[in-house]
């Protein structure tokens, strides 16, 4: 039992146990699915082969040695020490460009190479090593997190006692003891708990995001094992299913003393869920490490690649093919020229100085065709400079730095939880600027998952001055100072401490003032109902006497707290009933009252109401009932209607303000009526027939009629700060938002309202299987029939919805789907039409969806629209969609790290998404696009000069420039400014990014990385190359270039042309960049400066290394005025076309960011924002139909259409 050590606390504990027992008997979770029985027979068969010898160290050791079970060690890393080298190299060479460079490097040691081998290998090695170092660092961080998890401590039964062991050491079959608020280290079969009836409460936040506690109960046969010692002689064999990913199913049995008992999910405690409200439990480990259901659910970390990178690959293919093309052209000419060198059967040599009569195959006129083919390889090595080898590594470096900026953005730092934003995988930064659809979890992401009692309507009078997030957001938009003032009054109540779950303020009812209200009787009843009609359990703090509550759902807690704060303190629940401290309106004194609870008519989604039947101290019997307005209003007595209308009006107002409303009503029962009901109800409960539930329902239904309305409550499912504004901004930016939640449909819809995804006037298309005929079928139990009927129903509903959309184009639609329907809608043959429907709707809400469904929906959107999807969530239940989406965002700071671990970016609050996308996303996108374009430009400009020079060497493959100078082109002279642009450039400042959210559309529409832009830059590269090459060679032709008569030669002409390229490219950067900081200056000038340093330094070392560039600058070029004059001419001339074109473009065909730049340039602070906002919205891609702005607009339309002044 509880054990003597517990002493005085024992009695209290026992009481609570009893209460809990009382509660769960009518909780649905105790009911076992009937399917278990037939599944039980499959144990031992395929898929159900696991045999676990519990508490048998020998067997566990043997199993471990045989490698039968996986250890409890988890690893989420991409590489291990052994696989790192091959695997990361493999990853590297998945890129075509790298394979190309590898081949080039290998070939460059053969005689066909146009330059020294080392100069081709060095850049490749540099690039590969840099990339691998980056990979290694990223993986190391992951490993650190794994180590932390693996080294957590658990108590394991060993040698007659429970000892602390690391999680990794846990083996299948071990018996572990888990104490309150600890995580389960593996999947356990619950053996017993600190409660007599072996129940325990589990929080599965990490698994499904739900914070309400789940009840688990051990089998009776093991429930006696209540202390450490009792495990000494314990042994059992568990046979169960093999590891699988189904969180909610478990099939197995346990064999104790040759008796078999079936196991069900009720006995299974899942890894990463947490023990709550239970002192300790004992459990037997059945699945460890990667076998656990959580880990099975976690699909392997996919390596995500951004769309830009994919397109970039396309561009590289294009370059490769143009490279091959010009190589082929060159080879043909080379073949012709070579063949021509030997005439008349070799007796006459044309270019005798090349000795065509005595040559290797590479230049053999007799085998000109072969020579030409070999030359093809030479040319492809030579023109390798078309392909920017350093592009990938530069992009990775840039993204790393961009990620650093995201991490250190002080505007995305959450002060309260001390969490900054974290870009965990940096290779998706620019994808943040292209998001088309956001799929968001609700609980913990949009909401804080706390309920606050904020308003109520009693007897037709609305009370409560609290302001919801939605109202606040709308008010802020309108600029009403009134609300802001009211807020002060509420948020700063003199001397009142803040109560969780209670945000109600109204001097008319607070502090006992309600007794002076007109309808104080109704108010009293209202509060009493709140204090009585629930299933909460009070917990009295013995020191302060304060009461707190444990509730199944946060809403219930909010009601009881509200009742407490308003003077009806519920402080005790016993088997018999509930005890309250009440404020007596007559005496004005606190009195204790006891209400005997006769029956609890529980809440479920069809009933949508909950009732209790109580008997007060005077012997009067009451039925207290609360429920959804749709249900409750039809159950009110027809005679009583004095404030029905006003209540309904209030409810509508509340709903519009994003609140969850419940209608409260009661009825006094006379004894005869109650006795009749009691008989009927008890009989129904005790019946064993299939229609038991129906009978209960019917009994309850008959009683819950003719109710007297008390009023309505409004509870705010507290949105996270700034969520409505954020959603509004995102909607204005043209991003679609889908909510995927595990919650009930009603809750989801409420939240939809709260964050303005839904609003009145929006047509709701609901797809649900909670229809009477389907429910009827389900009772029948014929699975095939159910499936077929369900599917037909879903298809029909989808079609109806589509029709509705097609009929009215002007209206906005919302799609609400429940989990069951989703199962059918996501089937291969229906998902296409489902997606069509969903795309036609302005907001989509999927409720009751499982983690897998969330992932499937994400996949559907991703694959169906070919647009970038972003999934955001906080719990382990969101891991699937986070990994499936193009970008996964995890909400950090809350409990559980699964979502964050799986995510690409983690932020502390949903509202940071706005800055993450609109500012960082846009910047990264525009930076990376510009950077990639520029890379192509500069490499083409360089490569084309090489080709043009080939035309003057009869395509022999001679390089124009010195080989080392060529391989440093990408590394030293031109990369710095490009990287600086990729990291620091800002086309539009952060403030203007947020001010003009539509700017974001440049990303989803991919305006900055269109083929036309890319090709334009490539063409510009070709143009620059032509200008540079021909101007240089025409200026320096063959005449002397110095006053003492020397003529230009290969090395000097090459060096001059190279100088011109370095200048042109760096100056091009100077006129391309939008945001000219000191860093840009340094990088641009450094590029040019480095070139001269290189010329001097390289020219100064021994000619055996520097070859043609020996003293080329110090002796030949530096002192020649013509060199400098040519440099000036060529670099300026190369820029003029671009400059002219961009002037014409920005003046006459400006892009969106050009326009905002103009605005920014002339901006005055007295810009009338409101007017601006309207204009902006008028010009938006599609008028926003979700968000506060849309809601306000709709309201404006509604109001003005009624002819009222607004």
């Amino acid at each position, binding site marked *: 039992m509880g054990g003597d050590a517990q002493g005085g606390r024992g009695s209290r504990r026992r009481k609570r146990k009893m209460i809990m027992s009382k509660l769960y008997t009518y909780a649905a979770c105790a009911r076992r699915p009937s399917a278990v029985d037939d599944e039980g027979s499959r144990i031992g068969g395929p898929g159900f082969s696991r045999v676990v010898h519990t508490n048998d160290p020998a067997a566990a050791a043997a199993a471990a040695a045989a490698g039968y079970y996986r250890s409890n060690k988890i690893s989420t890393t991409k590489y291990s020490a052994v696989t790192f080298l091959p695997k990361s190299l493999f990853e590297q060479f998945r890129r075509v460009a790298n394979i190309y460079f590898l081949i080039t490097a290998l070939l460059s040691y053969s005689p066909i190479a146009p330059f020294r081998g080392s100069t081709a290998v060095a850049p490749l090695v540099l690039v590969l090593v840099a990339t691998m170092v980056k990979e290694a660092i990223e993986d190391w961080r992951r490993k650190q997190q794994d180590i932390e998890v693996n080294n957590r401590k658990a108590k394991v039964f060993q040698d007659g006692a429970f000892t602390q062991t690391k999680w990794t050491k846990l083996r299948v079959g071990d018996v572990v003891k888990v104490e309150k608020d600890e995580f389960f280290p593996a999947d356990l079969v619950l053996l017993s708990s600190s409660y007599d009836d072996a129940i325990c409460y589990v929080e599965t936040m990490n698994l499904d995001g739900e914070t309400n506690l789940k009840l688990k109960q051990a089998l009776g046969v093991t429930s006696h094992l209540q202390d450490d010692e009792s495990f000494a002689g314990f042994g059992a064999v568990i046979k169960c299913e093999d590891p699988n990913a189904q969180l909610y199913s478990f099939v197995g049995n346990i064999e104790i003393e040759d008796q078999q008992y079936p196991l069900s999910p009720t006995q299974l405690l899942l890894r990463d869920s947490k023990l709550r409200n239970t002192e300790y439990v004992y459990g037997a480990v059945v699945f460890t490490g990667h076998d656990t259901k959580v880990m099975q659910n976690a699909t392997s970390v996919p390596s995500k690649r951004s769309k830009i990178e994919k397109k970039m690959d396309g561009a590289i293919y294009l370059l490769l093919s143009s490279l091959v093309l010009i190589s082929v052209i060159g080879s043909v000419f080379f073949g012709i020229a070579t063949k021509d060198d030997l005439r008349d059967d070799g007796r006459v040599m044309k270019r005798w*100085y090349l000795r065509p009569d005595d040559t290797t195959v590479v230049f053999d006129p007799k085998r000109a065709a072969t020579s030409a083919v070999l030359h093809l390889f030479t040319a492809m090595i030579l023109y390798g400079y078309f392909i920017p080898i350093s592009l990938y590594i530069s992009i990775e470096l840039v993204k790393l730095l961009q990620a650093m900026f995201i991490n250190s953005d002080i505007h995305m730092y959450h002060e309260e939880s001390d969490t900054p934003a974290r870009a965990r995988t940096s290779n998706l930064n620019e994808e943040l600027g292209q998001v088309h659809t956001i799929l968001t979890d609700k609980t913990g992401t949009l909401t804080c998952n706390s309920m606050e009692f904020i308003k109520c309507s009693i007897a037709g009078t609305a009370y409560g001055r609290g302001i919801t997030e939605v109202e606040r957001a709308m008010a802020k938009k309108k600029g009403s100072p009134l609300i*802001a003032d009211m807020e002060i009054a509420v948020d700063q109540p003199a001397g009142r401490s803040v109560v*969780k779950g209670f945000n109600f303020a109204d001097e008319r009812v607070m502090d006992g003032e309600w007794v002076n209200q007109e309808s104080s009787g109704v108010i009293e009843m209202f509060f009493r109902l709140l204090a009585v009609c629930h299933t909460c359990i009070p917990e009295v703090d013995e020191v302060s006497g304060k009461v707190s509550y444990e509730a199944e759902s946060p809403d219930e807690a909010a009601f009881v707290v509200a009742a407490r704060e308003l003077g009806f303190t519920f402080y005790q629940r016993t088997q018999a009933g509930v005890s309250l401290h009440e404020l007596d309106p007559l005496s004005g004194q606190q009195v204790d009252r006891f209400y005997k609870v006769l029956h609890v008519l529980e809440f479920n989604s069809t009933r949508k109401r909950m009732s209790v039947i109580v008997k007060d101290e005077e012997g009067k019997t009451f039925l207290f009932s609360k429920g959804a307005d749709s249900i409750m209003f039809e159950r009110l007595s027809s005679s009583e209607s004095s404030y029905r209308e006003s209540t309904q009006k209030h409810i509508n107002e509340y709903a519009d303000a994003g609140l969850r409303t419940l209608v409260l009503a009661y009825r006094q029962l006379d004894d005869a009526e109650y006795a009749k009901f009691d008989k009927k109800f008890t009989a129904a409960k005790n019946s064993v027939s299939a229609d038991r539930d129906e009978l209960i329902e019917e009994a309850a239904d008959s009683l819950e009629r003719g109710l007297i309305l008390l009023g309505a409550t409004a509870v705010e499912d507290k949105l996270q700060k700034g969520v409505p504004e954020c959603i509004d901004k995102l909607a204005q930016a043209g991003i679609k938002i889908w909510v995927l939640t595990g919650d009930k449909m009603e809750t989801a819809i409420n939240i939809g309202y709260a964050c303005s995804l839904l609003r009145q006037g929006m047509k709701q298309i609901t797809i649900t299987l909670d229809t009477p005929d389907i429910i009827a079928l389900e009772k029948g139990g014929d699975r095939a029939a159910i499936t077929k009927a369900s599917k037909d129903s879903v298809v029909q509903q989808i079609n109806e919805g589509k029709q509705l959309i097609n009929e009215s184009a002007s209206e906005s639609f919302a799609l609400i789907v429940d989990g069951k329907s989703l199962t059918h809608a996501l089937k291969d043959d229906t998902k296409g039409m489902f997606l069509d429907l969903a795309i036609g709707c302005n907001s989509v809400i999927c409720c009751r969806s499982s983690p897998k469904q969330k992932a499937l929906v994400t996949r559907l959107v991703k694959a169906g629209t070919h647009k970038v999807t972003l999934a955001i969530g906080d719990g382990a239940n969101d891991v699937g969609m986070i990994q499936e989406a193009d970008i996964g965002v995890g909400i950090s700071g809350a409990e559980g790290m699964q979502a964050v671990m799986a995510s690409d970016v983690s932020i502390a609050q949903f509202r940071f998404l706005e800055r993450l996308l609109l500012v960082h996303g846009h910047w990264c996108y525009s930076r990376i696009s510009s950077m990639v374009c520029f890379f192509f430009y500069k490499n083409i400009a360089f490569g084309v000069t090489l080709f043009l020079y080939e035309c003057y060497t009869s395509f022999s493959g001679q390089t124009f420039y010195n080989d080392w100078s060529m391989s440093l082109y990408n590394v030293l002279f031109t990369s710095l400014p490009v990287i600086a642009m990729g990291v*620091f450039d800002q086309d539009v400042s952060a403030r203007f990014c947020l001010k003009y959210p539509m700017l974001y559309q440049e990303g989803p529409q991919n305006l900055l990385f269109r083929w036309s832009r890319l090709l334009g830059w490539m063409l510009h590269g070709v143009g620059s190359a032509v200008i540079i090459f021909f101007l240089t060679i025409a200026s320096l032709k063959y005449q002397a270039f110095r006053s003492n*008569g020397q003529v230009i030669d290969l090395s000097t002409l090459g060096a001059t042309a190279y100088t011109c390229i370095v200048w042109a490219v760096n100056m091009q950067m100077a006129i391309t960049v939008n945001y000219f900081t000191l860093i840009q200056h340094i990088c641009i000038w450094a590029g040019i400066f480095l070139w001269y340093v290189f010329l001097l330094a390289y020219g100064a070392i021994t*000619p055996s290394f520097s070859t043609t560039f020996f003293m080329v600058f110090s002796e030949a070029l530096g002192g020649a005025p013509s060199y400098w004059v040519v440099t000036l001419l060529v670099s300026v001339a190369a820029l003029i076309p671009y400059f002219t074109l961009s002037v014409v473009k920005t003046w006459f065909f400006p892009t969106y960011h050009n326009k905002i*730049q103009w605005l920014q*340039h*002339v901006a005055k602070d007295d810009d009338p924002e409101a007017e601006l906002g309207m204009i902006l919205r008028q010009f938006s891609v599609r008028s926003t139909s979700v968000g506060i702005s849309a809601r306000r607009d709709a309201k404006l339309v509604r109001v003005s259409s009624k002819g009222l002044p607004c």
Partner: protein
Amino acid sequence: MASDPAGDEGGGCRLRSICGGCDSDPDVVLRRLDTNTSAPTAPQSALPSPSSSSFPNQQEPRLLFLSPNPSKQQARKSRKPRDQPPALAESPPFLGPGMASNVAVTGNAGSGADGDAPRRNRPKYSKFTQQELPACKPILTPKWVVSVFFLVGVIFVPVGVVSLLAARDVVEIIDRYDHACVPPNMTDNKLGYIRNQTISKDCTRTLRVKKDMKQPIFVYYQLDNFYQNHRRYVKSRNDAQLRDYKKANQTTSCEPERFTADGKPIVPCGLIAWSLFNDTYSFTRSNENLTVDKKDISWKSDREHKFAKNVYPSNFQNGALIGGKMLNASIPLSEQEDLIVWMRTAALPTFRKLYGRISVDLKVNDTIIVKLSNNYNTYSFGGKKKLVLSTATWLGGKNEFLGFAYLIVGGLCIFLAFAFTLLYVIKPRKLGDHNYLSWNRHPSGR
């Protein structure tokens, strides 16, 4: 501060005020202040509600208020609130100065108690990390564009004029002789002529000086259609051998001129040396010999670092096929300047190489008799041979292209400057007109 004298970002910043004082984003100023928060703990209502313990799940702290530094509040109040970036405008603007604290009062037991809890993960504020470095945001304003074009034009035209004048100053005499020096009976068989060792290759040419030529007068030979830049040709040398007498045996990459028939290494090896130009010229002006100075016609660095003083030609040009000039085996390579000049391979198929210098002024209408021996075979590949006498200016030899190019580019810029001015006058564009903020130009909305 709130009046924000610098105006909005970008507002006071043109490209001409090159990048420095353009930090005028008011938010920057504000933020800098709020990082210095060291305000004391709020005196009031810092106690967590006891009831909050009943919600262990609800980690989200209930905020009483979150207030930054009071000065920020003040500053913000005087600005229009709508100009705040939303991420910033999160604190309710009701706190007066003096009441503020930077402590977030939370319902969480613990963090409320120790007040100003350390914010370990708070990103450090700096202009760099917040990407707010002072910067110039160049915008192509009409004024700017026109002045840039005009400036380029104004610089380029004079440079062009000066370059053109320099090129005009150069006096150049070019004489193509490869044709004329073939005996009339051999014009149909030039190849036979050049290959026939028995035919005298001597030839006399008469040159007339058209303009005064100041000494030094440079003597060049110019070859056409000669691919000194062919990869096989360029590679065919061994620098180590030329530099170091001990490495005479090193003839790698010299194919096919590595060894003599009996296997001795050739110095200097390779095709370049082998095909050394071997025409010679001598000049007389009315019976006065004009000496051609052949010293210092090569780069000093070549003589000193690439061709050694103690390396002598050996086994050179004694194979079956004689390419070009023979070398005097008693003269070290560093003094064989014709070779050194030749070994600096030309970049283009048409090139000149310095033959020597004449240190005598030539007068207009002087007649110069050139005695040359026309040995070099350009006939097989149809190349031309020209003799060039030229003076040089600071810009080098005669090439008017550079000057014209400058004039054209400069002229174009001035033209563009006028064109854009005109465009601006005719079709002025209202800057920052919101009506330009239309997406309708890109109807590809989806």
